[in-house]
């Protein structure tokens, strides 16, 4: 492996490999410190960034961070690399690439054309030289639009995943959160449940329930039960009405093995979803965007599968896995993993913006689960900052959950109210098909906000009727 070195003020900094250099150049992260690969001083970090800035982008094609023979994600990245698409930036160094991205030459069109020519390592490298405002500015230039029953990622739009989790997968409890979300204008990215168990019968039942709600209320959105891809395939075989197949993914073959998956299995999952022929918005009348992936910095180290590489670079590699399968939705679950990887609000905020930037630049339809756990040094103020910044960066979607409190996964993410705030402050609108449904239902109107006070919209009046008698029809509740 080639050594990299730079002289600063009479002192020589040496980095014994490209991976070492990338790790040292990475902004401070508790996960890289845990792995023992972070810069040992603030000056060494900047020295590494300076050395990285001099490096030709082509270095990443010649010097894989994980050997081609050892890792199928490396093989995917290099085999799929599009030299013709890469041409406009092929002669640039990493530092020059940053300038190019900030220049007028980089716009929605040119960035879209460039995406297949970029590798995750290139975008991770340039992100390490960028400030928060650079990540926001370039992220905003990228447009990645996907379709299932509606259109996600259009400029000026912000979608939400309605996440109605319940600790025992109780149908009525889940329905209560879905109603709350719909009446707060949430759910155009997906109505997506994290089930409490991977039990196939439960998954099939929940999929049927979501399918029935979406069709009975004629909601232009899609559903997902976020279970392991093998469970999803089994549910499809049992006839479950499945819109999207979900999987957590990571940036190395070994980390993916830790999740119990490989690329072949993801391909199998995608084919199973496509076989159902659901959705219907592309030129053939059918959607190719049938996958939903979640990622997050630190997952590879957590699975002891990081090959000595920094967590931000590995996260970008996960997006190469994602884009292979033309997903509808991809989001980093940025603060979920805990303080040993992202210690505090500052680290979580920067990581969320890096992930959005890297994903978008690679052509991935990025959303973000703006979140934290109760053992991290973070709070609602930190989330507000990341939320506002991601809104400015043109993030495709965020999560929506009642009062920010996920009572199943035990963490805090963005609420229905948070999405209303962001739409209000930045003038963002829901996906157009969903917005039309919200308006027709009397729930929400752009510029006005929630369009009803105490009287429920007529489509939902019967729910109020059930409550009028003084007791709620609790169905199968506990």
């Amino acid at each position, binding site marked *: 492996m080639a050594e990299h070195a730079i002289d600063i003020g009479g002192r020589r900094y040496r980095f014994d490999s490209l991976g070492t250099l990338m790790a040292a150049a990475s902004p401070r992260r508790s996960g890289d410190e*845990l792995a023992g690969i972070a810069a040992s001083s603030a000056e060494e970090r900047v020295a590494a960034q300076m050395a990285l800035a001099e490096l030709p982008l082509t270095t990443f094609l010649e010097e894989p961070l994980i050997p081609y023979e050892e890792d199928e994600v490396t093989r995917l990245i290099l085999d799929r690399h599009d030299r013709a698409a890469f041409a406009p930036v092929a002669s640039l160094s990493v530092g020059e690439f940053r300038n190019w991205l900030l220049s007028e030459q980089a716009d929605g069109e040119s960035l879209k054309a460039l995406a297949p020519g970029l590798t995750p390592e290139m975008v991770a490298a340039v992100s390490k030289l960028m400030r928060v405002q650079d990540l926001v500015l370039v992220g905003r230039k990228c447009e990645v639009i996907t379709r299932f029953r509606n259109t996600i990622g259009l400029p000026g739009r912000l979608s939400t995943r309605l996440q109605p*989790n*319940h*600790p*025992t*997968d*109780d*149908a*009525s*409890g*889940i*329905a*209560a*959160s879905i109603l*709350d979300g719909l009446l707060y204008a949430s759910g155009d990215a997906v109505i997506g449940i994290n089930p*409490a*168990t*991977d*039990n*196939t*019968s*439960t998954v099939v*039942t929940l999929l*049927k*329930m979501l399918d*029935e*709600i979406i069709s*009975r209320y004629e909601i232009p959105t899609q559903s997902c039960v976020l279970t*392991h891809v*093998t469970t999803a395939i089994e549910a499809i075989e049992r006839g479950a009405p499945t819109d999207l197949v979900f999987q957590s993914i990571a940036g190395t073959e070994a980390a993916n*093995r830790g999740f*119990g998956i490989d690329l072949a299995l993801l391909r199998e999952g995608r084919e199973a979803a496509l076989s159902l022929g659901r959705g219907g918005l592309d030129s053939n009348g059918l959607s190719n965007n049938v996958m939903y992936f979640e990622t997050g910095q630190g997952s590879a180290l957590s*699975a002891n599968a990081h090959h000595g590489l920094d967590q931000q670079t590995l996260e970008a590699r996960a997006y190469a896995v994602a884009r292979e399968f033309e997903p509808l939705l991809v989001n980093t679950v940025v603060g979920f993993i*805990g303080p*040993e990887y992202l*210690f505090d609000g500052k680290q979580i905020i920067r990581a969320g913006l890096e992930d959005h930037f890297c994903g978008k630049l690679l052509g991935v339809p990025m959303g973000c689960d703006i979140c934290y*756990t*109760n*053992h991290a040094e973070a709070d*609602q103020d930190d989330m507000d900052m990341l939320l506002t910044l991601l809104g400015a960066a043109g993030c495709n979607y965020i999560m929506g*959950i*009642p*009062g920010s*409190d996920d*009572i199943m996964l*035990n*963490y805090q993410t963005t*609420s229905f*109210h948070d999405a*209303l705030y962001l*739409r209000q402050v930045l003038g963002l609108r829901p996906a157009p098909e969903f917005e039309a449904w919200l308006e027709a239902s009397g729930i929400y109107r752009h510029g006005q906000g*929630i369009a009803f006070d105490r*009287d*429920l919209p007529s489509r939902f009046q*019967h729910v*109020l009727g059930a*409550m009028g008698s003084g007791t*709620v029809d609790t169905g*199968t*509740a506990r």
Partner: protein
Amino acid sequence: MNDEDFHDGDGGITVTNPWQRLRELTDARIGLGRAGGSLPTAAQLAFQLDHARARDAVHMALDTERLMPELDARFPLALRLHSRAIDRDEYLRRPDLGRQLSEQAKQELAQLSLEPCDVSICIVDGLSARAIHEQAIPFLDAALPEIERLELSLGPVALVEQGRVAIGDPIGEALGARMSVVLIGERPGLSSPDSLGLYFTWAPRSGRRDSERNCISNIRPRGLSYANAARLLAYLMREAQVLGASGVALKDDSEVDSHLGDGRQGNFLLPP
């Protein structure tokens, strides 16, 4: 949480939601109302209080003095072990140390000369000692009869401080256990600072991957009941013996959740 917690007496500036009463169905923070499009003051402060409590729960110490006699009464042998993480601060920054046994714990296990057993049970503080204080003993009282019915032999129970899930691997390995059950305090949620998690691992040994385990989550009175969690564990134990494996290979296909019906009816959003 009740409606009064969320009362804003501001003469109609905040909009309340008529579906508040659906809170009977879930602990989720539904029907919070709105001030403009934002969270009303009372709901905002209630959230801050719960966050403060959850932060405090993360730092609570495991009450081993109270738990050891309870374990002695239920197991032939109860061990008190510690991970390599010295205190909570190190535990939070160094999960690798929480997965390993302290030198003293290793020696203690090495000095035991016991017959191999079927099941090793570890009780680990994790991120909520409170979950262990409140759920571990009642869950054991539901689970131990199930394990007995399967005619499985129990090894010593281990009570572990500053531990993570994978610490059950070296313990199970040292005890010669065919399978390992780790009861651990889950990271506290705002509404559930007391949630117990269970991780089941066939043939425990250091280096097992997470995909080789099965998890039963949210064991607590307002979550998954002790009885249902115990039945689910018994199911995993039976299937793992047939399969010779746990984790992704062992699909949870039990009928524990069959109360859900077929999903197309049975809740207020989908009346017949």
